[in-house]
């Protein structure tokens, strides 16, 4: 028989490679090719669909602005007890001075103020005013150095004092047109003698060269550098051995420094704005110092972070839970209204002769060809108290002249208009399912002895459930996030949660809260979807035959 090699060794393909490997290779090639084929679509879907949702979810917890803008302060604040009655200590205020100096240069302090203002009303003006006046604090030191010697007034002098000769030579005549600016290089001996000064100057140099892109050589340093120099000299830095430009002036300053007048940062800040003396402001900064916060989500469910963790907001500030409830309830009402109205229409569509059915289909689709705004506004005209419907009812004598119905700017208006607008999304899936149910089923049921009603209820209706399910999911999900129609006809009692989301996205610019509200909406939809899957089964959803 055919020898042992075939039964023992691996089966070989025609070219001698093991069959398994060559099969795997050909399958891999197929997969790669298939993947390449759908790649553009995949990228498109990722960019336009997945990415925005991911971004929204991220924004709803992201809170890096505090720790980014006030890095030293947030670290220094860790030791402070927010439940106590004391303000943070001087070290915190010093860190705040350093942070604010950079933040003001970067013009970040106002956005931080806006962000914290969501949590603590009034904090935005605190940051705005402090930014404007932050220079005043540094000037206490700066003025004394400058009074001592005019040398300290000029940025060039600072650059030559602290930079290496070769860097000074190359940076001296640098202009923007020359391209990249030569990066600041510190003199080793100065750096050893004045470590704090160099650190402060390095911060200033990085910002000037990298972010501002101005010639560092000519820039006058920030107040922070003067403060640092004073601190170095006061810490009895050894400057006696230094030579080079400005060495003499420095030695003179070293002698004068201990006699300088200084201020407490805390007093200086409180002087700028008394908000810095308020414990609540400091608590807000500390609470929201973390990079990620549950604050937006808590806010979205009418809660807040208190000293003892999450707590309910005061009664008069609770709006979102009620809005979510109303949104869900009204979406359900709209979905059921759509089922009730759509079912007979879909049945007619599926059972009328071709010609009539086509005409009816055009009527069903007609709303799609009209602007959403026009349709909604039309309802406004129809439903108002002096509108067509009320006129007809009064004319028919069903409603008294002084008892005209209020059907607009309330929940009734929203339900009527949205049912009309979403009806096609219910009818079409129902129709496409009903179309696939042959009339013989009804006949069979009747021949088995069922009355018209029994035949419908026991045989026809169960087979249309997939269509009802598909339509309901579609309508409910559309309704729960609908914005324009409730905004136009809903008044104050008929608006949905979407109204608040839009408000936070476009008016209050509290994107984090808007994103949190949106994320909750998404989760609610997913939960309902899951529940539907458990109860009815998602395989039972059919959008078409």
């Amino acid at each position, binding site marked *: 028989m055919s020898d042992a090699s075939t039964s023992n060794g691996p089966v070989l393909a025609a070219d001698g490679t093991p069959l398994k490997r060559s099969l795997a290779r050909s399958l891999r090639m197929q997969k790669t090719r298939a993947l390449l084929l759908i790649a553009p679509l995949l990228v498109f879907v990722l960019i336009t669909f997945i990415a925005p949702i991911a971004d929204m979810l991220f924004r709803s917890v992201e809170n890096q602005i505090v720790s980014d803008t006030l890095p030293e302060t947030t670290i220094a604040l860790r030791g402070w007890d927010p439940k106590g009655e004391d303000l943070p200590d001087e070290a915190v205020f010093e860190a705040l001075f350093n942070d604010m100096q950079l933040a003001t240069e970067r013009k970040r302090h106002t956005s931080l103020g806006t962000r914290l203002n969501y949590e603590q009303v009034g904090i935005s003006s605190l940051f705005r005013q402090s930014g404007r006046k932050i220079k005043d604090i540094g000037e206490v030191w700066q003025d004394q150095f400058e009074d001592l010697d005019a040398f300290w007034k000029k940025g060039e002098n600072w650059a030559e004092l602290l930079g290496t000769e070769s860097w000074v030579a190359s940076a001296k005549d640098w202009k923007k047109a020359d391209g990249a600016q030569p990066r600041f290089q510190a003199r080793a001996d100065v750096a050893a003698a004045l470590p704090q000064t160099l650190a402060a100057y390095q911060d200033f140099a990085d910002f000037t060269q990298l972010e501002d892109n101005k010639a560092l050589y000519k820039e006058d340093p920030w107040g922070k550098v003067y403060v640092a120099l004073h601190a170095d000299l006061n810490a009895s830095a050894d400057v006696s051995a230094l030579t080079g430009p400005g060495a003499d002036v420095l030695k003179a300053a070293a002698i004068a420094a201990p006699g300088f007048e200084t201020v407490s940062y805390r007093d200086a800040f409180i002087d700028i704005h008394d908000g810095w003396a308020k414990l609540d402001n400091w608590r807000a900064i500390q609470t929201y110092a973390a990079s990620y916060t549950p604050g937006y989500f808590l806010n979205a469910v009418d809660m807040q972070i208190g000293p003892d963790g999450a707590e309910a907001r005061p009664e008069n500030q609770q709006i979102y839970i009620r809005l979510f409830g109303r949104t869900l309830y009204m979406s359900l009402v709209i979905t059921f209204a759509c089922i009730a109205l759509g079912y007979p229409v879909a049945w007619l569509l599926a059972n009328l002769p071709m010609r009539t059915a086509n005409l009816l289909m055009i009527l069903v689709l007609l709303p799609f060809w009209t602007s959403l705004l026009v349709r909604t506004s039309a309802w406004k005209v129809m439903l108002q108290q002096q509108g067509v419907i009320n006129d007809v009812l009064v004319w028919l004598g069903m409603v008294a002249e002084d008892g005209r119905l209020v059907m607009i700017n309330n929940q009734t208006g929203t339900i009527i208009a949205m049912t009309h607008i979403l009806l096609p999304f219910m009818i079409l899936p129902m129709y496409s399912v009903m179309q696939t149910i042959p009339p013989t089923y009804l006949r069979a049921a009747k021949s*088995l002895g069922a009355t018209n009603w029994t035949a419908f209820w026991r045989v026809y209706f169960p087979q249309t459930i997939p269509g009802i399910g598909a339509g309901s999911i579609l309508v409910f999900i559309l309704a729960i996030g609908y914005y324009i129609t409730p905004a136009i006809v809903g008044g104050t009692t008929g608006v949905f949660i979407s109204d608040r989301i839009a408000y936070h996205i476009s008016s209050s610019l509290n994107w984090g809260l808007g994103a949190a509200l949106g994320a909750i909406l998404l989760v609610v939809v997913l939960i309902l979807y899951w529940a539907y899957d458990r109860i009815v089964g998602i395989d039972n959803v059919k959008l078409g035959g």
Partner: protein
Amino acid sequence: MNISSTLGPKLSAQATRQKRGAILADGSSQDAFVEFERVQKSYDGENLVVKDLNLAMPRGEFLTMLGPSGSGKTTCLMMLAGFETATHGDIRLGGESINNIPPHKRGIGMVFQNYALFPHMTVAENLSFPLEVRKMAKSEREKKVKRALDMVQMGAFGGRRPAQLSGGQQQRIALARALVFEAELVLIDEPLGALDKQLREHMQFEIKRIADNLGITVVYVTHDQTEALTMSDRVAVFDDGRIQQLAPPDLLYEAPENSFVAQFIGENNTLEGVIEQIKGDTCLVKLDNGDLIDAKPVNVTKAGERTRVSIRPERVEFNKDRLSPDAHLLKATVKEFIYMGDIFRTRISVAGNDDFIIKTRNAPDQVRLEPGAEIEIGWLAQDCRALDA
């Protein structure tokens, strides 16, 4: 299914048919169970789909409506079931007119062409449905469902969904559902069209066996003549909205009353000519090429009339010894010889007809005709039927 069990019902069917002979002879018997009287049907007000239907069936009969597609068979069935109303005429069930009785009160079992098993119910639920709408107690329902499933040998499938069954199994379930509520009349519309040949033959026997065992009356619709011939007590051949002939299968095959039936049932040779003379139950036909042949006049009445004569391939004889000496013979040329195992099929050219077929049994002494051979053919006068042209 083994031979004996298929033969059993077949024989008993034969017996019942003989018993009913008297009723069958004239359709308008007093104890007819199903009766169509002068029934007409039009869907559009312009064309009559059913032109003039008269039919009477005794209790227990298995009647097949056979005819080409579009000849109105389904329409007749639907009128009987109550899903279409007759434009004119009377339909009676058990002596009572049912024109105004809605379908669900007629108590007629029906098997639809595509089975129409409810897809959202299990097999058992499908069968239980007609019993539930009749408000039957649960225990009784279960008993009847089980009996019906056992009857179609599907006892183990009660829990399945129709989609999980093969075509033949669905067919059995559809049949069981039509029978489970003990309908006396069952209508079956082309049930076997979607099945393969072997399964189809098997199901034919099965349906027939069950119908005979239960003694129910069956109206069966098909366009397959073999099916009609093997299953039925009587066959109604439909064409153009009329019953062309209503007769037991053997009569239908051997004594077609017009050329449509002769053409439609079985294989058939035709020759055209004019009646030369009629003598009792034989006549002389002069074919278009001048040759004379013997035939039996069926629906021709006088000499000079044009006629189309019909003769079955297996009744054509080319061995002169087996024919009477005074029989008229025709000269023919062999065109083609086909060996088909049990029979030989020879195509010959005779009297201007190139598609004249002779079938002979494959016996040890049988002659195999060579293509090109010149032969003479003839037949017994009663095997050759002179019909309408």
